[in-house]
């Protein structure tokens, strides 16, 4: 009858470790939200930043939010994507506008 005790003990240990990691992450997140996030938001506000500085290889990967939808393919239609980072960004879901909204010219 020792094997099941060992298994239950091992599973309990795994759950305990996982719970500790999750609790640790909660406390880290609350500390970072208190200390770092306001400071980063201050940077965004004063420098008027719009994007994360992650991919610097091309204009449309450095500022994905500012790029045109077709920018990765601007060299010629149906050209293949040059940069690996461009492959991470999924295509925007296109919703066709089916209603006509009157507007002033």
């Amino acid at each position: 009858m020792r094997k099941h005790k060992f298994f239950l003990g091992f599973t309990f240990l795994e759950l305990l470790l996982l719970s500790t990691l999750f609790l640790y992450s909660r406390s880290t997140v609350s500390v970072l939200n208190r200390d770092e996030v306001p400071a980063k938001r201050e940077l965004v506000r004063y420098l008027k930043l719009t994007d994360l500085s992650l991919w610097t290889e091309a204009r449309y990967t450095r500022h994905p939010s500012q790029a045109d939808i077709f920018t990765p393919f601007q060299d010629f239609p149906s050209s293949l994507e040059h940069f690996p980072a461009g492959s991470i960004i999924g295509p925007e879901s296109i919703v066709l506008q089916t209603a006509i909204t009157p507007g002033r010219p």
Partner: protein
Amino acid sequence: MRHLKILEYALSSLLRRKYRNISLIAVYALTIAILASVLFLTYSLKLEASHILIDTPDLIVQRLSAGRHDLIPMEYVKTISEIPGVGSAVPRYWGYYYDSLSHSNYTLIGIDGDIPGLSLLEGRMPSAPRECVIGAGVGSMRIVGTGDTLALINSMNTGVVFHITGTFRSVSNILTNDLIVMSSKDLVQFFDLPAGRATDIAVTIHNPNEVATIAGKIRTAHSDTRPITKSEILRTYDAVFNWRSGIMLTIFSSALIAFCILAWDKATGISAEEKHEIGILKAIGWDTADILELKFWEGIVISLTSFLLGLIAAYIHVFFLNATILSPVIKGWSVLFPAFRLTPYIDIYQIFVLAFLTVTPYVASTIIPSWKTAITDPENVMRS
């Protein structure tokens, strides 16, 4: 007590084929670790982006010319700021600089007026001509820091020397790694921008509910503009770090398919040895329900152990080792990729979904073929 005895027997049964089951747990845990790493990484980056980019301007107005982003005339600033509901319309000056020394691209930003001391800046913001502030990535590429000088080649192919008055702390790398901040006047001169033109216009709006209306009014007033709202910016990062998009989906689906093969292999049949064991158990008086419970425990032992080990490995990989295995996928061709610590945001809902998608099919694929064998006559099972 009866359940514990069946669990004890299940463990003994698994230990009889210990090398097979240990390798099964290793593969299963690795699959879970890959799946959970993708989920942890994308969720963490997504939440980080949504938390810090919330203070981005309400609207960015670009000018399009022949389908491409073009410099915007300063007259547009006046007409936009006169639209009711607009708080301010400020021109932004920025551009890209390719550094042939380090083969990396920098982002140059021009600022106007006094900016108070930023808590993530070591030193001070530029206040005089030919002064700049740099990101940690630029500093490490050019091996310079606060107090040093930074030589760049301007649009007229002339060297310009800037005095570095400050460096952004590495904590802000995710925002500032490739930045060089200088006065707007210096930036206009550096890029030789035509007079009366800016890169784009940042607009603040008093009432967030009016953003779409004001964007429409700007489009009506200047048909060559493209207003980008804050919600569109946030949505972009939601799409970029969505686990369903691009390469992340490729990794995720590969791991999921590997798992499906594993589960399918189990579900399509059990070995002759296992059939023989079930036959003997039936012959010595075990009920079909007992055998199903035995197989349930076998499935739970393997899948729960693998799932928990995989989750722990994924957490350590992503949040303690900064996703060293997945980061080359995200890094792409960036020469200047920021070294930043991932914030351990965790979505419990995603973990439950992952558990449901992996543990449940594995346990089901263990029970179903055993049930088929258990309802067959024991003599036939033992003879087959």
